Every structure is written in structure tokens, then in C-alpha cells.
């Protein structure tokens, strides 16, 4: 067994017992990266030198606790002081933030070691990581296939053993969908649980930072560090963060589990439906009460999302104008031209498409018909969930309608948007959701999504952990052709 194959908590224990040094751990992961990342292409920036320096510091201080001395990766949308943060866009290709995002700072303060920055769909817009301005990331289970997106680099890096854990962001499924495609654990916390400060905004009312890990315990450990109120983010809520590890009891007797009829209908691959149904039986076996429920407005979540998210994005991405940072077209001879040419050359097609869509939805004469309508539908979606959570503790369903698809296979924008159909409603309602491995279809991982009440990540982790400990899908690792 190589060090890179271990989980965060396993590494933590070894370091604590002084059986390995941080330097050995870091070296193991970097040699893994060097060996396979030319195939997987998860990283856009590597910080090897700094990582080794930090590891040596850790080894000198000999204070191993939590993530101290252990490497991790950050989606390249999370700002890192002095380290390029590009959002995988040409427009920010050379941007070096003079600040750390709150989540980056928290990991740094716990002496975690940044291995590098991870690939993503440009500005988190996409479901395949093919929209990265640099290169697509490959799925470690099948290099011909996409890792999902937008946090595809984070998911692939964890799945391929390049880092034990990583952070990503999730606006409409960008953590859970790639976690599902890559067979890893991916948690999107409640909107307001984790600070967004220093995380480049896509759709501010939906964005949330979350965790990729190889098992549920690791996810709880990292959540303990990144969660909590941040006075710099007005939408981060000032309520206590419980010790998430304490929820990992393995006991879910009496837990009330709902599965929505709408998440098992046409449009979701039949084999995936079967796989998740099997998982529901497992929950029953473990003592949970499982019942079918209805979330009647589910089918309207995606169209409403594709108004709200692009509308907010059109404003959030307006600042990339070539004045203060980032790419600029120097040919233009007046400001309007400079703005328009800079943005035309700096943004990729999908980003432009969503800016156009959002601008249109907000423009004079369309606001009520589109944007306002979408906000009303958002209320209805939120109500659906509230109704179910009156009687149930968690909601369970498939994370994605299909398993990982081939690169280039889905080129029609609308077809790609449909990937988010099961994850978007959760963002619309601001709820926490986790995707965990629950089986394979034709050798590709299938993810099960567990959705919880607001700020009840604990119960999510409790349910996920019990299932995980009684199955072994999480222990199966992809075999890369290079080994």
C-alpha cells in the first residue's frame, strides 16, 4: 500500500503515531501526480516546492493534528494569496490574488499543505470540465470519459489518489455530479454554512464551497475546519457548528428516509434507478424507515435555475473588463471597444452564452416574465422540500441521470444542462446535499444523493456513513492504464 492510497484520517493517524513524516506523505502524492496527471490532467497549477517546504516545517514542529502536514487541492476558483487563481479562464490567466479565500486561510491555519490548483469548467459553468480554457480533465475510471463538472479537477484528483481531499464549489451540482462520476464523496453544505469570501462568484445566491474526499469520515473532518460564520460574508450564518465526526455513529435506526417519485422517472437511466433503489433497501436493512414522497415542482427547478444563475452571473462576471486585473485587448482605441473586445477574447463560449442569457433575462421588458417568474418558482421548490422535511430526516435519490459520458459526446448546451436536473433543486432551496458511491453501471461509478434539512449536515453524514460502512463501493479504486 502506498501512502497516496490512504485516506485523510488514515494519514492523520500515521502522522500522529510518527510512523511517517509529512515530507514522505507529500512526496508520495507528488510522485503519484507526476506519474498520472499527464493522463488525468486534474491540476492547472502545482505548488510542489512550497508544499515540501511546508512539510519540512510540519516535521520540525511535530504537531500533527487534523489535516496538519497533509496535502490537498483547491478548485482554481478559490483565491490563494500569491498563487495564480484563474477560474480556468483566459481572462484571469495570470491573476495572482493578494488575499486568501476564507476557506483557503482556514486550511492553511490548520497547517494543511496546498498541493496545487485544480481544473474546472471556466467560471464553474459546465458539467464536464471540457469548458476549461486550458484542457479537459479525464475521468480516472475511463480516460475517454469526462470527470463531470464543474469541479471535475477536484473530483478526478481525489479519485486518482493525487490528493486525499480537495475543495470545490457547487452552484447547481458542481460538486455532487463530478463526485458521482468519479466515485468519490462530495458534499455541498447548506447555503450559508461555509464562507464564500474569496471564492470567485458565479451565482451568488446559489454558490457554496464543499468537500471532495474518499470517504465520509474525511468529509466530516474537513467540514469541521471549513464550516462556520465569517463576518466578511454577510450570507454566512452565525450559528454553531457541531463536531461532524460525532455524527459518525453507524446507527440510523428509525431514521426517516424519503425518496421523491420525481427523481426516479424517465430521463434517469434505468440502471441508475435500480442501483439507487437497491441502496434504499440497504437503508431499510439498517433500520431506517423509507417512504416515497413527491416534490411536485421538481421539473421546474432546472428552467428556473437557468434564469437565476445566468442572471446573477451576468452581473458577477461584468467586473472582468480589463481595467484592474486580468486579460486586456490592447488594440482597442476607446473604452467601450476595449471592454467588448477584452471580454469577447477572454471568455469562452459557454460563459458568453450564459452572460447573454442572463443579460437578456434581466433586460428591460423581460424581467417580470423571466427573472421574477423564476424567483417565484424558486419559492415553490423550497416549499416542496419544507413539506417533506416536516416528516422526514433526509431525502435520497440518484445524483445524476447518467454515468460519466464521453468527451465531446454532449455538445448541445441544453443537453448538457440536463445533467444538473437532480442536483439543481437542492441549490435552489439552499439545502445540504452529499453524493456518495453506491454502485457501478458498466464499470462506471454511480452516485447516490442524500439531501438534508438546512444546517443539518450532521444527519446527512450520519446516513452517508452508515451506508458506506455497510457497503464497500468506496474502497474500489480506479485502475489507471499507467499502473
Amino acid at each position: 500500500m502506498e501512502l497516496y492510497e490512504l485516506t485523510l484520517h488514515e494519514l492523520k493517524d500515521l502522522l500522529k503515531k510518527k510512523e511517517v513524516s509529512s515530507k514522505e506523505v507529500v512526496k508520495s502524492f507528488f510522485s503519484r501526480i507526476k506519474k498520472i496527471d499527464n493522463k488525468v490532467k486534474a491540476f492547472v497549477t502545482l505548488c510542489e516546492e512550497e508544499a515540501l517546504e511546508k512539510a519540512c516545517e510540519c516535521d520540525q514542529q511535530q504537531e500533527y493534528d487534523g489535516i496538519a502536514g497533509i496535502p490537498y487541492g483547491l478548485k482554481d476558483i478559490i483565491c490563494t494569496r500569491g498563487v495564480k487563481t484563474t477560474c480556468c479562464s483566459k481572462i484571469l490567466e495570470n491573476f495572482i490574488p493578494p488575499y486568501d479565500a476564507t476557506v483557503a486561510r482556514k486550511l492553511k491555519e490548520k497547517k494543511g499543505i496546498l498541493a496545487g490548483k485544480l481544473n474546472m469548467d471556466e467560471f464553474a459553468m459546465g458539467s464536464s470540465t471540457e469548458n476549461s480554457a486550458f484542457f479537459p480533465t479525464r475521468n480516472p475510471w475511463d480516460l475517454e470519459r469526462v470527470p463531470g463538472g464543474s469541479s471535475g479537477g477536484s473530483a478526478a484528483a481525489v479519485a486518482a489518489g493525487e490528493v486525499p481531499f480537495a475543495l470545490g464549489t457547487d452552484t447547481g451540482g458542481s460538486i455532487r455530479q463530478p463526485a458521482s462520476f468519479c466515485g468519490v464523496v462530495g458534499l455541498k453544505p447548506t447555503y450559508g454554512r461555509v464562507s464564500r469570501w474569496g471564492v470567485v462568484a458565479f451565482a451568488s445566491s446559489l454558490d457554496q464551497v464543499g468537500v471532495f474526499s474518499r470517504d465520509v469520515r474525511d468529509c466530516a473532518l474537513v467540514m469541521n475546519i471549513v464550516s462556520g460564520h465569517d463576518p466578511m460574508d454577510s450570507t454566512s450564518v452565525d450559528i454553531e457548528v457541531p463536531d461532524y465526526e460525532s455524527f459518525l455513529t453507524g446507527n440510523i435506526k428509525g431514521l426517516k428516509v424519503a425518496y421523491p417519485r420525481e427523481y426516479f422517472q424517465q430521463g434517469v437511466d434505468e440502471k441508475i434507478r435500480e442501483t439507487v433503489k437497491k441502496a434504499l433497501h440497504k437503508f431499510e436493512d439498517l433500520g431506517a424507515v423509507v417512504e416515497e414522497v413527491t416534490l411536485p415542482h421538481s421539473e421546474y427547478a432546472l428552467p428556473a435555475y437557468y434564469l437565476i444563475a445566468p442572471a446573477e452571473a451576468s452581473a458577477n462576471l461584468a467586473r472582468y473588463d480589463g481595467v484592474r486585473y486580468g486579460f486586456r485587448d490592447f488594440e482597442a482605441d476607446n473604452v467601450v471597444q476595449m471592454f467588448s473586445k477584452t471580454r469577447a477574447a477572454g471568455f469562452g463560449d459557454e460563459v458568453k452564452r450564459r452572460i447573454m442569457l442572463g443579460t437578456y433575462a434581466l433586460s428591460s421588458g423581460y424581467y417580470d416574465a423571466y427573472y421574477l417568474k423564476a424567483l417565484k418558482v424558486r419559492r415553490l421548490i423550497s416549499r416542496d422540500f419544507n413539506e417533506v422535511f416536516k416528516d422526514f430526516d433526509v431525502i435520497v435519490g440518484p445524483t445524476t441521470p447518467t454515468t460519466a459520458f464521453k468527451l465531446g459526446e454532449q455538445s448541445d448546451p441544453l443537453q448538457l444542462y440536463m445533467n444538473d436536473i437532480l442536483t439543481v433543486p437542492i441549490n435552489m432551496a439552499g439545502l445540504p446535499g452529499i453524493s456518495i458511491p453506491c454502485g457501478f453501471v458498466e464499470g462506471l461509478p454511480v452516485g447516490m444523493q442524500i439531501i438534508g434539512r438546512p444546517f443539518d449536515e450532521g444527519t446527512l453524514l450520519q446516513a452517508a456513513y452508515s451506508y458506506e460502512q455497510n457497503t464497500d463501493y468506496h474502497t474500489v479504486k480506479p485502475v489507471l492504464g499507467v499502473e
Partner: protein
Amino acid sequence: MISIREVEHVALLARLSLSEKEKEIFAEQLSTILDYINKLNELDTDGVEPLYHILPIYNIFREDEVKTGTSREDILANAPQVEEGQYKVPKII
């Protein structure tokens, strides 16, 4: 259906200079997407309060205290063009 003229208007608002080909593609793609989005009209939302903020929180403030900002060197370090400690931009008109 979104016309080329509408695409041009929206592109101007969004400050995106588009080629003729891009305008055509966007007109078609945006029409398809909006067609799908129009599904929302199946729903009667009369009397439904729009959901502006998902969190039930209000009155989030900071106190009126000055903290030292970022140094001029740090803030200007990423700028494409700087002169006399300021961002330089081409003529306005």
C-alpha cells in the same frame, strides 16, 4: 425566437463583441434554451412571493471602523496598465 438584432442589443449591454457567425449561433441557441425555459409558464405563480433571499437572516452589519486597506503596490500588481499610481484606460469617447 431571439432575433439577430436582439442578440446585438444584449451583446452591447453585456459588452461582448460578437462575430456575425457567433450572433447567428447565439440567436439559435438562446432561442432553444428560452423555449425550454418557457416551460415555467405552465405554472400559475399568481400570489407567490418571489424568493429574493433563501436565508431567513436580516440586518447583517459591520461597525464603522477603518482598517488599513491593501497597499497600492499590491492592489495595482495585477493591472494591465498603470500610470501615476492609477489604472490607465483608453479614451472614453
